[in-house]
């Protein structure tokens, strides 16, 4: 080892490779990426699995008293809160749904971890559909892994319902078998953010700081477009590496450009650090952010520096909300998961919980002999449906498979959130 500085250099490069390949493409990206990372080649499931969708009683995953789903979530790595939240919320809802079985059938789900990696997600889908012969896939994952399943779902006519990913490619153009639930396409969220900036905050010369991952880039591109459409240009558009610890370079440049508002497109740990450093560097203009920077973890991590920060929100309640419906949900949650870590339930728990009811409704409408096709057809009839008080309504049609259209904003104030009196137009 001694005298081996060049050996050390090789090791450093190896470590770099390891760390970058292990890093989630969209770390902690809640309503994750906007563009396909790499379109996976379509693969065809064995004929038995796909042909069964036309059968009546031989639908895969359907027995006399059960319908079995496969769940794919990002459950390990830095973005694990996406998969764990979605999974635990979904399971909690199943307890209630299965109390009165749908057409005599209880919903079951078996989970696979995609670790935030597209290839792993695709392998998980193949395992669930081709080996375990399950009915459909429920996804609670970031966009990178969700997008990897598009071709597979299309080619094999497997219903794929994702609760958490924000990639526009999942729903535009419409794929017959793919639906997104609680999350909203990035094109829509970014339109809402621009609306907040221009109409509510009356910004004239905004600046932007976005991570260089696909989610951050998608947000930045869409926001630029919506700003341009309104005849506004940004005075500074800076980028940062996700997970960075120092933002002096970007914030100093932004400060020098003297914007009247800054849009932060990052995710919670990063945005918290940015807010703190911005305060230290004397940036006093208002800052706003996407749905990816909302949550109790944000309040805790940024402390007083979060005061006044407004960010997007996709469910009717936030965890500290004291309304009875929300408290009832939290009580149920804590009863089932007494050892849940701090910060849970997070909004992904709400996502998974709400979308389980939407899926149950689809199955109900699909009738006594549900097939994959009748299930997606039934989902397309769902309009303004809320299975629970803690969900925003879902509407699907044959030409719209993005179920949630309700984007609101919340503002951090002394360690709590208050609702922002602004209803965004996302259409």
């Amino acid at each position, binding site marked *: 080892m001694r005298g081996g500085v060049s050996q050390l250099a090789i090791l450093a490069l190896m470590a770099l490779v390891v760390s970058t390949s292990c890093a989630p493409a969209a770390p902690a990206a809640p309503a994750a990426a906007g563009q396909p990372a790499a379109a996976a080649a379509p693969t065809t499931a064995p004929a038995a699995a796909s042909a069964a969708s036309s059968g009546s009683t031989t639908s895969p995953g359907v027995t006399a008293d059960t319908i079995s789903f496969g769940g794919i979530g990002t459950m390990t790595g830095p973005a694990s809160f996406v998969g764990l939240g979605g999974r635990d919320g979904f399971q909690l809802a199943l307890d209630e749904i299965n109390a009165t079985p749908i057409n005599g059938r209880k919903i079951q789900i078996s989970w696979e971890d995609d670790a935030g990696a597209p290839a792993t997600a695709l392998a998980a889908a193949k395992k669930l559909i081709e080996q375990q012969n399950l009915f459909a896939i429920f996804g609670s994952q970031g966009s990178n892994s969700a997008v990897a399943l598009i071709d597979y779902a299309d080619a094999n006519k497997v219903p794929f319902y994702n609760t958490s990913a924000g990639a526009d490619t999942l729903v535009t153009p419409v794929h017959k078998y793919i639906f997104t639930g609680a999350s909203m396409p990035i094109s829509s969220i970014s339109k809402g953010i621009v609306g907040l900036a221009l109409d509510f905050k009356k910004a004239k010369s905004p600046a932007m700081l976005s991570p260089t991952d696909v989610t951050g880039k998608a947000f930045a591109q869409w926001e630029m477009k919506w700003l341009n459409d309104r005849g506004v240009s940004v005075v500074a558009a800076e980028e940062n590496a996700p997970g960075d610890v120092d933002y002096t370079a970007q914030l100093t440049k932004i400060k020098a450009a003297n914007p009247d508002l800054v849009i932060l497109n990052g995710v919670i740990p990063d945005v918290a650090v940015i807010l703190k450093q911005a305060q*230290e560097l004397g940036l006093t203009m208002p800052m706003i952010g996407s749905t990816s920077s909302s949550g109790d973890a944000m309040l805790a991590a940024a402390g007083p520096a979060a005061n006044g920060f407004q960010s997007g929100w996709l469910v009717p309640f936030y965890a500290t909300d004291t309304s009875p419906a929300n408290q009832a949900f939290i009580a149920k949650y804590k009863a089932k998961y007494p050892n849940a870590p701090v910060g849970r339930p997070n909004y992904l728990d709400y996502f998974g919980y709400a979308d389980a009811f939407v899926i149950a409704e689809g199955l109900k409408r699909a009738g006594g002999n549900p097939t994959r096709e009748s299930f997606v057809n039934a989902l397309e009839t769902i309009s303004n449906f809320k299975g629970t008080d803690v969900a925003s309504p879902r509407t699907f049609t044959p030409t719209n498979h993005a179920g949630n259209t309700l984007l609101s904003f919340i503002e951090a104030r002394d360690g709590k959130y208050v609702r922002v009196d602004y209803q965004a137009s996302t259409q």
Partner: protein
Amino acid sequence: MTQLAVLPQLIVGGVTVGSIYALVALGLVLVYKSTGVVNFAQGDMLTLGAYTGLLFYTTLSLPYLLAMVAAVVSVAAIAIVIERIAVRPLLGSPDFTVIVATLAISIVIRGVLRLFSGDYVYPFPAAVSGPPIQALNVRASPQSILTLGIAVLLMLVMYFLFIRTRVGLAMRATAENLQAASLMGVSLPQIFRTTWALSAALGGLAGILVAPLIGVQPEMGDLLLKAFVAALVGGFTSLPGAILGGLALGILETVAGGLFSNYFKDIVTFALMMAVVVFRPTGLLGRAAVVKV
């Protein structure tokens, strides 16, 4: 023109982040200097320092200073256990085996932390608070000034330890030649234990200092990679080199990021590393090692 006006602020920002790199690099250099092993779990010692600090201060409500001392001691104790279980049995194995073992330790620590704390980012109280100190157009937070001060102080302490004390001599002897040192009466287990405890304590302290700036979460240890480059630039066997490397790296990447593009931040990091490897393989302050056969 406006570009250059922000230069002083960029340099100050670079020094802040650079002193954190330097602290982690110090721990890396310490273990390498005394045992010839690169400890890939050094970044996670930082994470452990932050989590235990949080435990003692927030959960057990100890006074701040006491809580932080307890945290540093705990991390050292944890490191002694890790050394005994996972590193000592590999004594005499090829260095690479030990390095892979430290990688495994890192993965285990992250997994365990995530198991218990989830992905929540905990806030961490700063040792010193108050408004940023402003001079002309440049601002620096008291916490960053403290971090730099402690990094330099620790460097001096470690330097003294290595040069002036018997333990330091034994450490250097062990690094030079394991068998010869052992034959000369150096207790290898004791040296290994001391080294791991010391470097972990350094890491833990770095964690306590960096946590108020970036929050506490299982991936804090990712700082290791930058610290690694800092140590390499400094020479990997030189304690002042680690400090110099850390500061140089911090300033270079912040200035490059600020004056050009954010993408330059990582480019300059590894360009610097390659330049050092090609043009000055011993690092800025390292000494060429002579292997006698």
